[in-house]
């Protein structure tokens, strides 16, 4: 069993295998199940992701009314062809947003690695799909590759906003996505690790400050930016750019930052954007709680 990214990369490179293959084999071993069982279980998760993206792109609205409809706006904007950043990035962003809008509306999603960060991995996957034309198996492998890196973060740091801030949720998701994009695009396991490191470095310190305690503001837009971050970092790694700080040390830094982060900034809705005048106003409007009751 690999304990960190260095071991994961070493395992993959010494056996001339993909990261996804190492993850599949480990899962077969741990669960004592056949390859077919494990692949079909992941296929089911992929289906849920597809359905969530499709639903979000059609337009959803959350119960609070705070979020919904932005994925539609983005898709219409892409269709006009006047965008500045790039079609694949914007497509990834819109699909990440779509998934998280469905999540906020209490729809069915696949936690990747958590529900609040469920948009980034499928958002990037379905966007690069248009570019790389993967087979169904390659799409399933994308999830195993992402899972392998998430597995390391979950075991060595944290993937929960309450424990480690949003850097642990959207940050982990973006790093996982970047690493998986690299594998799908034909990069090496080491390049996947570089992409993960570059992404996570740029998510360090990100606080978890949900307005009114809802997984909506700023969560949906952070999934959007997590997806964009992952796309750019994957391109950087594929271009040969490396991270001066090794991936495992970045993960360790993320863990330590999470530990020293005040509780008010870890999913308690007591600080950050949740504590802004508008954040408090929205909270009072949604729950009818007097503004001085909290914080």
């Amino acid at each position, binding site marked *: *069993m690999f*304990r960190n990214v260095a071991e994961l990369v070493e395992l993959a490179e010494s056996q001339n295998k993909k990261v996804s293959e190492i*993850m599949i084999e*480990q*899962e077969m071993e*741990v*669960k*004592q199940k056949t390859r077919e069982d494990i692949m079909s*279980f*992941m296929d089911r*998760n992929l289906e849920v992701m597809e359905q969530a993206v499709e639903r979000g792109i059609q337009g959803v609205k959350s119960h*609070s009314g705070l979020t919904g409809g932005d994925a539609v706006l983005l898709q219409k904007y892409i269709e006009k062809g006047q965008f500045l950043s790039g079609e694949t990035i914007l497509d990834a962003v819109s699909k990440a947003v779509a998934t998280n809008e*469905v*999540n*906020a*509306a*209490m*729809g*069915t*999603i*696949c*936690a*990747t*690695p*958590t*529900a*609040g960060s*469920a948009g980034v*991995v499928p958002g990037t996957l379905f966007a690069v799909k248009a570019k790389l034309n993967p087979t169904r198996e390659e799409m399933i492998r994308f*999830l*195993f590759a*992402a*899972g*392998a890196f*998430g*597995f390391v973060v*979950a*075991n060595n740091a*944290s*993937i*929960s*906003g*309450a*424990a480690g801030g949003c850097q*642990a949720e959207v940050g982990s998701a973006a790093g*996982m996505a970047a690493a998986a994009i690299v594998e799908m695009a034909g990069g090496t396991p080491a390049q996947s690790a570089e992409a993960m490191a570059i992404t996570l470095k740029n998510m360090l310190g990100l606080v978890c400050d*949900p307005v*009114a*305690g*809802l*997984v*909506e503001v700023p969560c949906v837009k952070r999934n959007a930016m997590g997806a964009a971050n992952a796309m750019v970092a994957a391109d950087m790694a594929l271009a040969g750019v490396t991270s001066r700080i090794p991936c495992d040390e970045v993960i360790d830094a993320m863990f330590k930052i999470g530990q020293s982060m005040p*509780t008010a900034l*870890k*999913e*308690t*809705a*007591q600080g950050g954007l949740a504590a802004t005048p508008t954040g408090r106003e929205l909270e009072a409007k949604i*729950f009818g709680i007097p503004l001085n009751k*909290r914080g």
Partner: protein
Amino acid sequence: MKYKSVFDIIGPVMIGPSSSHTAGAARIGRVARSLFGREPKWADISLYGSFAKTYKGHGTDVALVGGLLDFDTFDERIINALEIAKEKKMKIKFREEEAISDHPNTARIKLGDDLGELELVGISIGGGKIEITELNGFQLKLSGHHPAILVVHNDRFGAIASVSNILAKYELNIGQMDVSRKEKGQMALMTIEVDSMIDDAVIEELKSLPNITQVTRIVD
């Protein structure tokens, strides 16, 4: 290692919006129900830390009650769990506790009916994974790093041996085992951590043993 399976990272399939506050909460509720062995008539739920601060926004309340109604994390009925509980005349109370708990996402559930009561403390550690840290006043000494089951049994000769025999038969190595009881000859608890995943077949076989009243997976 707290996370053993890639499906803890890519998964679970669930109703949003939060894996620790919704899916994890549903699982804590469902373990409570499973240990109780039937649908409770009432439940008093105390919430601590982030659970206490944000449970309404995250749907933690509906998820916990959904779990008590035996709904899985992806069951869409979770959304209407409070109404469903009301229809079933299940009495639910929530308390927002100020006390600081060891983990930011902690819930204490007391539940019962005319025949009995049960109390447990569960924590949601992220990504939908949970641990049960206390049951009926017994502290469960679980590392959380290994799959674990909880066996409620009558304090009788051979009960413990019969359980360990079955684990041996399935080649499950016991890493840690804790046995505790309230009084001699009364209800007792075995908390067993093993080195590999526990199949449903093992759980079923354990349940069929004499003097074993309840077998529940508490760490996957």
